[in-house]
């Protein structure tokens, strides 16, 4: 059990060091910042308790909010993602069923499964994020466009960090 907490802490620090020091300073196409911190929620084991899930979502969202001056916006999106994550996990159950305390990395249940699962989560996160950011349903088309591009950028860069600095090191 302690190993799980170790790994949670390690993931948290790696993702946030990169998010806050590197990616928050890189702006793609004048508009898009990769929000790789969401991979913290993505990689938590499938049997993580709901209480821990939603509270940690609130904490990581708030940290990103404080550092980017958007009080409440990221936190809203991450708490939403934490709420729907159990549903998405049950939709995408792999053939071998979920193992307890096993973190959800690209290699855990195969890359195909991971792409399906992580893209769904990132898309929901970006969509809620940009919807709250626009705060106006008449801008929905531009929200969809932003969601699409942001998902792509976040997914590629997040995957690189998770694969290179977390999964490999852990093995």
């Amino acid at each position: 059990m302690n190993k799980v907490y170790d790994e949670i802490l390690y993931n948290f620090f790696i993702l946030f060091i990169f998010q806050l020091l590197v990616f928050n300073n890189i702006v793609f196409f004048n508009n898009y910042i990769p929000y790789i911190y969401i991979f913290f929620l993505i990689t938590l084991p499938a049997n993580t308790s709901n209480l821990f899930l939603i509270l940690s979502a609130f904490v990581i969202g708030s940290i990103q909010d404080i550092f980017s001056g958007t009080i409440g916006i990221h936190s809203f999106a991450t708490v939403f993602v934490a709420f729907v994550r159990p549903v998405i996990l049950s939709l995408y159950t792999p053939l071998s069923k979920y193992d307890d305390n096993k973190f959800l990395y690209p290699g855990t249940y195969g890359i195909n499964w991971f792409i399906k699962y992580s893209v769904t989560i990132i898309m929901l996160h970006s969509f809620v994020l940009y919807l709250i950011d626009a705060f106006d349903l008449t801008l929905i088309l531009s929200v969809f466009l932003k969601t699409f591009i942001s998902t792509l950028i976040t997914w590629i860069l997040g995957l690189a960090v998770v694969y290179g600095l977390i999964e490999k090191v852990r093995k």
Partner: protein
Amino acid sequence: MKSLIDFILRHYFAILFFLLEFFNLFLIIEFNSYQKQIFYNFSNDITGKIYETVYSITSYLNLKEENKSLLKENAKLKNLLTAKYFQSNNNFTEAYFEYIPTNIIYKSLVYENNFFLINKGQVDGIQPNTAVVSPQGIIGVVFKTSPHFSSVLSILNTKTAVSAKMKKNNYTCLVKWDGKDYRYGKIENLPTYIKVSEGDTIVTSGFSAIFPPGILIGTVKNIKKKEQENFYDITIRFTVNFKIISNAYVIHNRHKQEINNLLQNSTIDE
């Protein structure tokens, strides 16, 4: 009780989710100026529509009183018109101030910080920080505007103070409200060497670019001296009966921008 606790325990995830999201929404609206503006425009419009419907029903109830005061005002205006024939070119107020008639569709009286809603907004040229008066006297200052409605900070508000003067000797003072009775206001900065008696009239001073000079505020009702201070503690009775008013004018100062610019430029940089 037990079933309630059971319910909370069973659905704690959903309950926690909604609590956190409401908290986040509150933070978003409170701390992000863009979202804040959209939210307040939206809510101002919604509440405006609701109160307008209520007003269209309840306005009949006050018709009698309203008619009386309108008649009085008509008479007053006619008097002014005839007086004007004989006056020389003293049209200071006319040139400076524009009157926009409006209806009060919502008012609060019982809180410490009361406000009104009126059914004119940005479309009708109403801007924040313009004066709102009724035929009997001043009411408040426009605070926020949406396209078709505006909210008005009432003088029945512990945070507002109106620059006023005694009509008989032109000494200036500040009129405040202590948050207790909607009929009475307070003056606390009038020094005791000035002679004040009951029934004296208090009018606006015209020193703040908002209110034109000489609009009625109230009459002195009660005079006390503060202990060990050289100031009076005066209670005034507002001439406006806030319980029944439903018509008002917004007074737009055509030169407000110019006056404010000049005021700002007149402070000397060190």
